[in-house]
């Protein structure tokens, strides 16, 4: 492949270079660079304010504390009491040793009773998530009634020595809480005295 010889440049004398023209030429060359820099900076800024990838799936959180009522989509929960215990029983046949966190609460549906149950009852402690135990007769997956709170207890089986520091109880009416409302109750486990034995409240109407 051959390259055509470069055209003979016209003599400089033939082109009168006025200062105004050169300044305009400089501006014309600088403008795209300046615009590019501005656009790159704008793109960087856009990335900074952008939400992370899973942001559309984040839950709508109603935060509360022990003793205070909180509401979310079709669920209201009041945690009435939190106990730490070395052993737990449901007052009937089941009794278990270990490290337990027992949570007494009232819960009701808000608008729709159809299929309403307390599907998610989790405890977030440090980087771990625990679900309420399926052992014994507890209020795990309790059926909810619209407007009329029911009372019950759930229990969390934890590793030994885990009952310390801040923790969060999570309540929701769905198993998958993405893009749905959840109630989060913060508890400081250092403030919860350890008891030898705690009996779960039977599931019934709240008083």
């Amino acid at each position, binding site marked *: 492949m051959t*390259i055509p010889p470069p055209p003979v440049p016209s003599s400089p004398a033939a082109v009168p270079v006025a200062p105004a023209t050169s300044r305009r030429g400089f501006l014309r060359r600088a403008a795209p660079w300046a615009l590019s820099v501005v656009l790159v900076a704008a793109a960087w800024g856009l990335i900074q304010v952008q939400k992370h990838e899973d942001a559309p799936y984040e839950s709508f959180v109603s935060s509360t504390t022990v003793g205070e009522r909180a509401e979310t989509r079709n669920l209201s929960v009041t945690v009435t009491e939190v106990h730490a215990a070395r052993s737990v029983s449901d007052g009937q046949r089941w009794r278990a040793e270990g490290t337990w966190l027992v949570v007494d609460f009232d819960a009701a549906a808000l608008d729709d009773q159809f299929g309403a149950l307390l599907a998610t009852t989790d405890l977030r402690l440090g980087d771990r*998530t625990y*679900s309420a135990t399926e052992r014994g007769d507890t209020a795990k997956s309790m059926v909810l009634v619209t407007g009329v709170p029911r009372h019950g207890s759930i229990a*969390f089986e934890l*590793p030994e020595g885990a009952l310390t520091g801040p923790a969060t109880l999570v309540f929701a009416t769905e198993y998958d809480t993405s893009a749905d409302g959840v109630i989060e109750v913060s508890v400081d486990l250092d403030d919860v005295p350890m008891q030898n034995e705690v009996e779960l409240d039977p599931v019934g109407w709240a008083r």
Partner: protein
Amino acid sequence: MGAECSLPAWRSSARTGERHALRSSLYAVPVGEQQEAEPATPAVADAATRAASEARMAAWARKMTDRVPTGWLISGAGAILLASTAAFGGLADVPKPKPAELHAGEHFIGSELDMSVVSAAVGGEVKGAGVTPDVGEKTVVVVLDVTNEYTAPRTVRAKDTLGGIQLDGIETHRYDVNRVVDGSGASFLQPDVPTRVRIAWTVAGEAVSPGDEIRIMLPDSTRFTGSFVGRGEYWYDVRPGAYVTVTLDEIPSVDEEAP
């Protein structure tokens, strides 16, 4: 007609097919009126200079690229590739890690579960086992200590957890998992909480008898965190992680509790 009147003039004339000359300066510039006015405006001279400098640049770039020894580079890269392949053992298959061979009491960590077989036993109908053998069948009960080492609860009966435990070479029919401490059905393993479970299978009567050595396969798998199109945690590539050799004890009679 009113709608047509509101159209721009050029459009309506195109519609109606009127043969008007395009008078707008947007479409046509009469040739020979302005271009030939001055022979060497600064703009034209500028363009010529720029073209010249671009051509010089192109020539220089071509000269430089011609100096790059492409052939040598390709041969060298090929030689490096072959040499590194040979250095790492050629194209032979990498030997797969063999499942560990263990005995009762030894711990195996697979699928992010710490598992340790305590004992195994065989009997007829075993109370509390959760499964009832048919006529001519027996119940094999394996007692296992398990601790979930992941940060969230794991279901018990999934293929990547205790549901993946098998008796090597023995066909099993029914299956159940209970906690030893209270006999409750085990559904979830909470993080870091050690649990002793009783896994029961029904097997054909002639498949096992007390005193036999059986090999219990503990599963291993790899965790995958969904992102972009997937969400959540999955354990995939479930594979045998360890074989635990245990001698089968005998569970004496129907009324006896499983070990």
